[in-house]
């Protein structure tokens, strides 16, 4: 290798490569997917997953884990399909309240030194309950502007791709370029040194959770834009998908080492894995299992490239 990459860029190479490989495999199996409509169909559901993954990534950046992501996104979807359409002012107030709750959770977790896994586990029951109260049976309708936003057809590239790029760029600017982002990652790396430097850890942690809440709210809204209706269990699998997306994208559980662009790529990879399997005509029984196998293969691939990289450095 003559090209010298920064470690941040190196972190992105592996997720990007796995996405490209998977995409190539899909095109090879189904050449018709290589079109505007085809790409949009392939990546449509990736937009809410990418947003949820960014939200999870922000929580993971401060060394925490959010087990309530799935139920929270479902709850937001319920709010979007009911209040946001029928009574926009109340709807917006509820969404703002939900984001404030998230920020509050960050503050409480920090002040009381609580394990984030348990607090978010408890919150997952709360969001689930609120969702059931709002929509006991699947229903509601997406607001027209959300529907329009998710089905708009921009020139050149399909909506799903444009949206993913916008999400990646915005998250990159916030997390990697802003001073708040540096602070959040600093807490993940070494909270004591951040505190000694005169910053308020409580505020930064609250901000990290608040930002996560903002992205998760956007995920719920985007999801309703695609599905047009909602129910309290619509996004339960987002909890595990978002964690897997962050890890696939080169993020780590501890140390504040995260990559927003990688996270979006990770989410796209996970979405694509599902389509890839249906193109392979794998029996429905083994669909989930094959998804697990793909996850393992990608991570093995990452380990292999990491080893190569280390050997290069050693020379």
């Amino acid at each position, binding site marked *: 290798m003559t090209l010298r990459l920064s470690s941040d860029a190196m972190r992105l190479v592996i997720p990007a490569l796995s996405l490209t490989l998977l995409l190539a495999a899909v095109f090879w199996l189904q050449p018709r997917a290589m079109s505007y409509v085809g790409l949009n169909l392939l990546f449509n559901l990736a937009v809410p997953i990418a947003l949820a993954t960014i939200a999870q990534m922000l929580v993971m950046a401060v060394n925490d884990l959010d087990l309530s992501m799935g139920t929270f996104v479902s709850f937001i979807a319920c709010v979007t399909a009911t209040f946001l359409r029928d009574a926009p002012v109340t709807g917006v107030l509820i969404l703002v309240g939900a984001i404030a709750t998230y920020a509050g959770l960050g503050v409480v977790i920090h002040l009381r030194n*609580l394990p984030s896994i*348990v607090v978010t*586990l408890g919150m997952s029951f709360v969001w689930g309950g609120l969702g059931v109260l709002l929509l006991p049976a699947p229903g509601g309708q997406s607001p027209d502007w959300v529907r329009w936003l998710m089905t708009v057809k921009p020139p050149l590239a399909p909506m799903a791709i444009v949206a993913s790029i916008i999400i990646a760029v915005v998250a990159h600017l916030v997390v990697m370029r802003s001073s708040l982002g540096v602070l959040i990652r600093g807490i993940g790396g070494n909270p004591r040194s951040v505190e000694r430097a005169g910053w308020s850890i409580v505020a930064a942690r609250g901000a990290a959770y608040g930002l996560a809440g903002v992205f998760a709210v956007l995920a719920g809204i985007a999801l309703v834009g695609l599905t047009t209706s909602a129910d309290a269990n619509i996004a339960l699998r987002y909890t595990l998908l978002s*964690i897997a997306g962050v890890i696939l994208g080169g993020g780590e559980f501890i140390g504040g080492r995260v990559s927003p662009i990688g996270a979006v790529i990770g989410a796209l990879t996970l979405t694509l894995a599902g389509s890839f399997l249906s193109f392979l005509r794998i029996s429905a029984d083994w669909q989930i299992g094959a998804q697990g196998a793909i*996850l393992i293969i990608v*991570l093995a691939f990452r380990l292999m490239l990491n080893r190569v990289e280390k050997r290069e450095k050693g020379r």
Partner: protein
Amino acid sequence: MNPFLRLFETPWIWSWLASFIVWFLTIMVTLGASTIGVSQAALTFAAFSVIVGLGQMFVITLGPGNIDLSVPATMTFAGTVALKLMNVENGMILPGLLVTIAIGLVVGLCNYSLIKALRIPPIIATLSMSFIVQSAAIWTNRGLRIKPPSALADFTTSNTLGAPNVAIVALLISILAWFLLEKTIYGRWISAIGQSMPAARMAGIPVDGARLATYLFCAVLASVAGYLLACFSGGAALNMGSEYLLMSIAVVVIGGTAVAGGDSNVPGIWGASLFMFLVVSMLNTYGLGAGIRLIMTGLIIISVIMLAGGRRASIR
């Protein structure tokens, strides 16, 4: 120090207190008429959470990031395969149990091989593994609902001296777990690994062996719980393990085990398991709807952890 005060410093006392209060509030609704029924139901359902919770506790003891997410899939797969193998014949009960344990061993071995060979974080490794195991369960199950052998069905649903049999099994497993954790060198090893893996390695502890044994133990307990649960509920269902994913983590943490690892206790698992069941049944007896019940459950979990967490922070 006063022994009574010392009792309040044990990490598990809070979960016991909380479950006692909830138990009391529940039986007061019927003015004590339902005491025996509620207690037996609580012991029965808590028993399953205890068995999976114990395994999860050993894994969590290993330190940050160690959580076994394959528990529900393993339960489902073991229950399905065992019932299919036993095929309603009482003579096949023992082979069924052996196959259950073998499934646990295989899943645990695969879990740890992924963690070790591919250096995947345990959460992701066990998650990927659970997808594969879940698929295997779907493939073997095929929507069939085979009944358990009659002797086993009777055993899991009846009582001995007023105590549910599954609760007695759970108690025996708990005693074994307590002995492993507190009285053997293995227990010291996993606590040491949970506190600092590099330090444990320097001290000459066989870190890989101990971690492998822990993942095996957890998977075997999950599969045994699946076996018992399938017999108790009269057949294996594909979603029978799903609620035990969050449950197994919740009972460990509410029971006072440190999430950061290295500090565990067995009695807390019982307190927390009873508590988790009793909260739901209390809210049921008060006739609340599903939504309110979920919200209350969540708020109660958070308040318990805030009480217990604040106490630990003040000691530090």
